[in-house]
């Protein structure tokens, strides 16, 4: 006999301590958190945060992420400019790390989260297991986009020889950190159990 879901048995799992209680329980008797069968307005909140992240993604890529003052000259570099520079210098592995962490991961994560939200709005079509895996992947890789921001932080602290060479942080670093944080909150707020609701008869 297949198992039933908590919702079908009128139970809800506490989102903090995982305790199973009746759905109409107001507060978890174990940890005191408010009980919801599914996170309220999960889709709307996730979408709102995704739109914020998309808007922040524009200054993150167009503004300079770092300035270099070298022997009286100042040059600036954007995220993509940095990747191109690394390619010219021949540092292919590092260029790949930065390109994957700073361009592919945030963009892929935004697209994946939009896709997950819209498939739920459009009646939950497609493989549930694949979409769950997609969600797990976005959750797993989310924070790795911060690599480029941390690289800026380290270079700014380390390369600081006044008059010879000084690295300074640019506004894109903050915008980019904003993209990473908002997409992380968006992924955390997305209730993945919605993917599995209403479609029990369909094989995954």
């Amino acid at each position, binding site marked *: 006999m297949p*198992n*039933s*879901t*908590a*919702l079908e*048995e009128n*139970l809800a*799992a506490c989102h*903090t*301590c*995982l*305790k*199973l209680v009746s759905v109409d329980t107001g507060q978890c008797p*174990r*940890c*005191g*958190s408010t009980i919801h069968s599914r996170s309220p307005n999960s889709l709307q909140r996730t979408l709102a945060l995704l739109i914020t992240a998309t808007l922040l993604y524009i200054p993150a890529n167009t503004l300079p992420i770092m300035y270099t003052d070298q022997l009286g000259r100042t040059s600036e570099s954007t995220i993509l400019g940095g990747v191109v520079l*690394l390619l010219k210098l021949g*540092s292919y*592995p*590092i260029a790949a*790390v*930065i390109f994957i962490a700073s361009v592919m991961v945030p963009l892929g994560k935004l697209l994946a989260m939009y896709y997950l939200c819209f498939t739920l709005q459009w009646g939950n079509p497609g493989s*549930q*297991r694949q979409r*769950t895996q997609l969600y*797990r992947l976005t959750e797993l890789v989310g*924070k*790795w986009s*911060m*690599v*480029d*921001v*941390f*690289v800026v*932080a*380290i*270079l*700014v*602290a*380390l*390369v*600081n*020889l006044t008059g*010879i*060479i000084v690295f*300074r*942080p640019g506004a894109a*670093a*903050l915008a980019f*950190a904003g993209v990473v*944080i908002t997409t*992380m909150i968006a992924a*955390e707020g997305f209730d*993945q*159990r919605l*993917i*599995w*609701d209403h479609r029990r008869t369909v094989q*995954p």
Partner: protein
Amino acid sequence: MPATRMACPSCDLLFNLDTLQEGQSASCTRCHAFLTTRNANAFANVASFATTALVMLAVACTFPFLEFNRAGFENATTLPQTIVQLWVNNMPGLAALTAAFILVIPAMVMLLLLVLNLALMQNNYRTWVKPLANWVFHLISWSMAEVFFVGVLVSLVKIAKMAEVTIGISFWAYAAFCILFVMAISQLDRFQSWQKIEHLT
């Protein structure tokens, strides 16, 4: 005694965990999400990994992290200086975020886990155990120590051609911290921790 049941956090399917033996772990049959594992030593393991991690972090904050040398001019940096330098460059927001992600949150997680798991190990219930557990499970996903470490490696390659860079003791201490952090988290089980807390109340 009522059955030990758990809903899959990923797809809400219900499972009875009464037959789960010591040393076994359970995962969801439908979506393959990890559910829980039974390990009698888990609390002691988390506490010991967390203690060692905290010692390593203290070392990492005290000694030089990296040294930069170009044409006879030197600049040594420590971990806290990385944050201070962002602050003096008119980026207080970025400085605060970096401080939170690479030092404050990782340290808090380890400290709170140490205190929590010591309490659970010694079977004594205190009123602060619940809010503490509540906090720590939310904080874990915001620790970015390992991401920062990859950032350090990338920076090293980036400036290796530009100047001579020397690796300090803190670099190795922080690397050890990252490994110990992951080891502590891998021994932590949300379901079992809360079962134990309930058992103690």
